[in-house]
């Protein structure tokens, strides 16, 4: 969606260049774009709340060993117990502590989500930069591929890949990276194209700089703010995909706990009815985490987009 500044200030700028106003965009000679973005982000209550929640979730999974016990310790004397002082979220059918499993599962889900999103962003940045830098046929082919890749549902790609080569975390990360890169790719392509016409890039090219140098020194720094936004949103997407795949039994394999496969364990009407403590914690954890990441991503987007929320 095109982000248009809300309502033109003063009157519409005339088409004639000679009549355009001279100094800076918006004429606000305030702080650096970065400082302004930070200020805008801080003012977005949903984003700040999302950041706080996300921080808590990350901290809790990082400190899991200090807060909770062994997630795989089987206590046959305490099977299928409801929440209690000893087991805050109760125990599962093998007597494992659900609280500990939820925390440790968070590590897995966050890690897989981060890795997959990072993969998608790196691949996207590369393709996007190459596409924007070379243009022409290369650009055309890459963008066509991006279109097609984008229209394939990632869950189905995971399903088919896992079905044929067998489910694993690697398959998950590869499938997510493979199907999610076009988002970042488009963004980087746009940034690259607008950079390509700038003088200093042309000068650098003339002095014999190679593509790799250009990408590292100029394109990546310029693309960083918008890519951070897509990267953040990609993390949310990737966590969602990981948990979905694990729920379907195609991701993280038991006995290692992941939020998705904890819910998979609860796929049985009796368990759903009699042991809600089995499925509510991982479900809420996914929802809260993904929502928080999305809020942060949205806030970041509004913060780095000139004109703010449209």
């Amino acid at each position, binding site marked *: 969606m095109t982000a248009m500044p*809300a*309502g033109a*200030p*003063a*009157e*519409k*700028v*005339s*088409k*004639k260049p*000679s*009549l*355009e*106003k*001279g*100094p*800076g965009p*918006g*004429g*606000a000679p*305030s702080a650096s774009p970065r400082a*302004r973005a930070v200020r*805008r982000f801080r003012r977005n209550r949903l984003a700040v709340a999302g950041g706080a929640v996300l921080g808590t979730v990350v901290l809790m999974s990082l400190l899991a060993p200090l807060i909770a016990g062994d997630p795989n310790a089987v206590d046959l004397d305490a099977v299928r117990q409801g929440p209690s002082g000893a087991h805050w979220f109760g125990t599962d059918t093998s007597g494992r502590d659900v609280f500990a499993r939820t925390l440790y599962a968070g590590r897995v889900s966050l890690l897989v989500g981060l890795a997959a999103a990072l993969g998608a962003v790196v691949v996207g940045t590369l393709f996007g930069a190459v596409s924007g830098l070379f243009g022409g046929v290369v650009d055309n082919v890459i963008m066509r591929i991006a279109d097609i890749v984008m229209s394939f549902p990632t869950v189905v790609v995971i399903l088919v890949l896992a079905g044929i080569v067998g489910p694993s975390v690697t398959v998950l990360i590869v499938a997510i990276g493979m199907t999610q890169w076009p988002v970042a790719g488009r963004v980087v392509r746009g940034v690259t194209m607008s950079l390509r016409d700038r003088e200093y890039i042309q000068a650098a090219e003339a002095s014999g700089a190679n593509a790799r140098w250009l990408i590292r020194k100029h394109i990546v720094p310029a693309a960083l703010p918008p890519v951070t936004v897509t990267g953040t949103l990609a993390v949310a997407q990737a966590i969602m995909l990981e948990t979905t795949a694990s729920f379907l039994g195609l991701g993280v394999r038991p006995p290692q706990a992941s939020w998705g496969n904890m819910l998979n364990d609860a796929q049985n009407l009796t368990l759903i009815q009699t042991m809600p403590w089995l499925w509510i914690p991982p479900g809420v954890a996914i929802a809260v985490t993904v929502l928080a990441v999305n809020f942060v991503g949205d806030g970041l987007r509004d913060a780095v987009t000139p*004109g*703010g929320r449209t």
Partner: protein
Amino acid sequence: MTSLSKKEPAGPLLEIEDLVVEFAGDEETVRAVDGAGYTVAPGETLGVVGESGSGKSVTAMSALGLIKPPGRVVSGRVVFDGSDLRAMPRRELRRLRGGRIAMIFQDPMTALNPVMSVGAQIGEALRLHRPGMSRAKARARAAELLALVGVPGAERRLKQYPHEFSGGMRQRAMIAMAIANDPDLLIADEPTTALDVTVQAQVLDLIRLTRRETGAATVLITHDLGVVAELADRVVVMYAGRVVEHGTVAAIFDSPRHPYTRGLLESLPSLDGEVGDLTPIPGSPPAPGEVAEGCAFAPRCAMVRDRCRVERPELVQSGTRRASACHFHHELAGEETDARA
């Protein structure tokens, strides 16, 4: 400001007084119009000139209540034919819009709805103000209007979409829409700016024609002094959200009494030449929101003095039926007499 028209004893048709319009931005609030005002007499054509950002469009837009958030009319009076538009209920204001007050916009490329046929858009203008009018009747009238504004093959072109019209033809359709309900006041916002030079002349002719046909008073907003010279009876010159000078075309063109107007006229190559280019005045207008003490034009003014930087000049009478917002308008007036002597 007292009534400036003597031929219409009923008083002005449109009167804008001390208008202040602000746009709330992300970081700060920008004052686009800062106490501007003018009057339009029935049947007269008023040219409003100024650079982009001078607030000339925003001022006129307020006459229709078309300032939308984040823009806001902070204060001022807008009176049309005796009734206060700012106090008017929305329903009544809507009846005026496109009825007694019609508007022609700058860019005919974007001002027409791209997914609605031209006929439907003209028909809509008609039917909105004549609830009883049948579709067929509106259609027939739309064809008449299109023919009137000089669109060939009007009947056939009703079914076409804006993208099938050329720029000039679109502006004609726009004018047809504006005159559909025989308005008393026509506001034309840079009606020729987006058009090719050859087409500009045709559209100006058309505006002249429609003005004669409908007898509507016209507010012609433009940065092109040539257009003003050709069409307008009186001129209002705006700078940085304020009126800096107004008077009859003859008076202003002969003897401008504000350095800014002077600069504008001097930068005009010749009346029959190319489009007037305003850049030769050194510097650029203050960015909206740049709060300046004293006269807003002072940084660019050739005859600036100390007083200009501290005291903001008010718009004062400078001879009959004209006013200037320069501390030293007398000197400018004096030069005229010197030159004439």
